[in-house]
């Protein structure tokens, strides 16, 4: 009885085009964001902030980036990890080599570097589609990780390409505790999520989806394929680049090229499959799900249920569960958790009189 849109009439198209046209949604969302900013940093333990909440946000951002390219624009990428690596290493080098460069500027420059690399590896999308394009992104994945490990300049001549993030300082304020790093991550991710939503609901997003759903028809109604696809690659890689920067600076602190391998790319792909393709919310749900699942499994393995599972199987349970879930979601609900969420809301809207 609480979740109702009765009586909420839209008097203008402006009101109808809001991100959350239903009032209750707006209230819940505002409460969530407020809680994330003002409650979580004080309530959550350091462990939770550092090892759960911050990575969920960082991965959600990367998943958002992949979702722009794959979910909205329909171009499958297996190179997400590499674009994150470009963001991390570029940010590191900008901050290292340009004295007094503000952190945020360095981060944005890192994102822009990733965008530029993304466009280069997106160029084949003008001639090739589908699997073949996925292979092109695999080329990016292997080449970039190899280059970062092989050319010591990128890591300032540290051993095996490891970089250690510099101290983050913005206007003289140091972001040096887990709570502060979490807040910084949250602010950046929230902002970029809003931007993604705006892109998705305007002409830019419609052009992406049109190219995804039927490229010939999109071209016939005047959508320039090349520009649209490359823009998707650029924006997506920018997001991944920023996510990579945050991965190094607010989450891990120390990263190496191999940490951005194919497994990372697959992990993020799984997030959007399970969270929901072509949805901003899906990126967050997927990231939370994929990161919390191993934690949940681990807890389960330490209970009496876990004692029944042989040790060799237990250590591989994560792989098995991921595999099964991916197949399950692709078969049963290709729009992922987001769609389940929407179905839940529809039911609630009509409850208790579903007819």
């Amino acid at each position, binding site marked *: 009885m609480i979740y109702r849109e009765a009586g909420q009439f839209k008097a203008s198209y402006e009101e109808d085009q809001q991100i959350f046209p239903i009032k209750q949604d707006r209230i819940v969302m505002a409460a969530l964001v407020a809680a994330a900013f003002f409650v979580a940093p004080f309530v959550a333990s350091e462990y939770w902030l550092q090892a759960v909440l911050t990575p969920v946000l960082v991965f959600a951002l990367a998943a958002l980036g992949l979702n722009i390219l794959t979910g909205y624009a329909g171009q499958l990428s297996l190179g997400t990890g590499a674009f994150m690596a470009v963001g991390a290493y570029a940010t590191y080098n900008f901050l290292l080599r340009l004295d007094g460069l503000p952190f945020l500027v360095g981060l944005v420059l890192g994102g822009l570097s990733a965008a530029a690399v993304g466009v280069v590896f997106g160029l084949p999308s003008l001639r090739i589609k589908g699997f073949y394009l996925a292979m092109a992104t695999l080329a990016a994945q292997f080449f970039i990780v190899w280059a970062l490990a092989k050319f010591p300049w990128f890591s300032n001549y540290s051993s095996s390409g490891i970089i250690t993030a510099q101290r983050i300082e913005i206007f003289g304020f140091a972001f040096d505790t887990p709570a502060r790093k979490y807040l910084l991550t949250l602010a950046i991710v929230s902002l970029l999520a809003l*931007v993604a939503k705006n892109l998705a609901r305007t002409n830019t*997003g419609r052009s992406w*989806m049109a190219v995804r*759903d039927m490229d010939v028809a999109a071209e016939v*109604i*005047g959508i320039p394929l090349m520009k649209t696809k490359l823009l998707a690659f650029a924006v997506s890689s920018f997001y991944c680049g920023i996510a990579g920067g945050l991965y190094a600076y607010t989450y891990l602190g120390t990263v190496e090229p191999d940490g951005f391998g194919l497994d990372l790319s697959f992990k993020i792909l799984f997030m959007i499959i399970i969270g929901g393709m072509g949805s901003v919310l899906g990126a967050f749900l997927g990231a939370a799900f994929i990161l919390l699942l191993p934690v949940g499994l681990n807890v389960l393995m330490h209970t009496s249920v876990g004692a029944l599972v042989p040790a060799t199987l237990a250590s591989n349970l994560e792989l098995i569960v991921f595999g099964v879930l991916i197949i399950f979601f692709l078969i049963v609900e290709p729009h992922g958790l987001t769609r389940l969420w929407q179905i839940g809301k529809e039911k609630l809207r009509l409850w208790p009189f579903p007819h």
Partner: protein
Amino acid sequence: MARVIGDVILDLQNISLSFGGVKALTNISFDVREGEIRAIIGPNGAGKSSMLNVINGVYHPQQGRIVFRGQERRRMNPHEAAAQGIARTFQNIALFKGMTVLDNIMTGRNLMMRRNFLWNALYWGPSRREEIAHRKRVEEIIDFLEIQNIRKTPVGRLPYGLQKRVELARALAAEPSLLLLDEPMAGMNVEEKQDMCRFILDVNEQLGTTIVLIEHDMGVVMDISDRVVVLDYGRKIGDGPPDEVRNDPVVIEAYLGAGH
């Protein structure tokens, strides 16, 4: 508003098109006048769809000239054709299946939207005003085609007849001067066909849009078109007002078969 048939706006001269040695169109010439409804008919495989694809640049003919609004061209891509005011629908519906009806129609206005992605990222000021302004125009088309109640429905869930209508709406959203319709009534029941006929005539009369259409239903073609081109095996075998074409022995022979 009375219908005014104006000058020639599209002139096709000696068009030939082949795919790896297979001839799809051979030396075809015809013209389209401003404000008229021009039909292309012919048996299956006669090259009708190929003809439309040539007009809006999906296929590039090996020979021939195309003059559209005084500008001559040998080839152009679909994107340029759209920019010059040519819109179309497809034989097998080519809607964007994952998007709502409203979004599908809004894509039709993409060429008129000037704000780039940086403005859109902010969805503020000019970008928001532009979205709203185009939404208003799209709502007019939605009213015109009587699809108000489905505007937020993903097109993949709509029945066939309605999808055809949404596709027409998307083409109209571009405010084209030349509208190409590839079998707009294929697979429809009588009632849906009547609706579609009415919409096509309304578009032509009220908006003054020039229409080139391919249709198999002879009754419909003879009723609504001003002039008819008949194709057979990629060649033009007839051209003229419906009555004339209907009584042309060559056309009867080819189209209806010797038995008639």
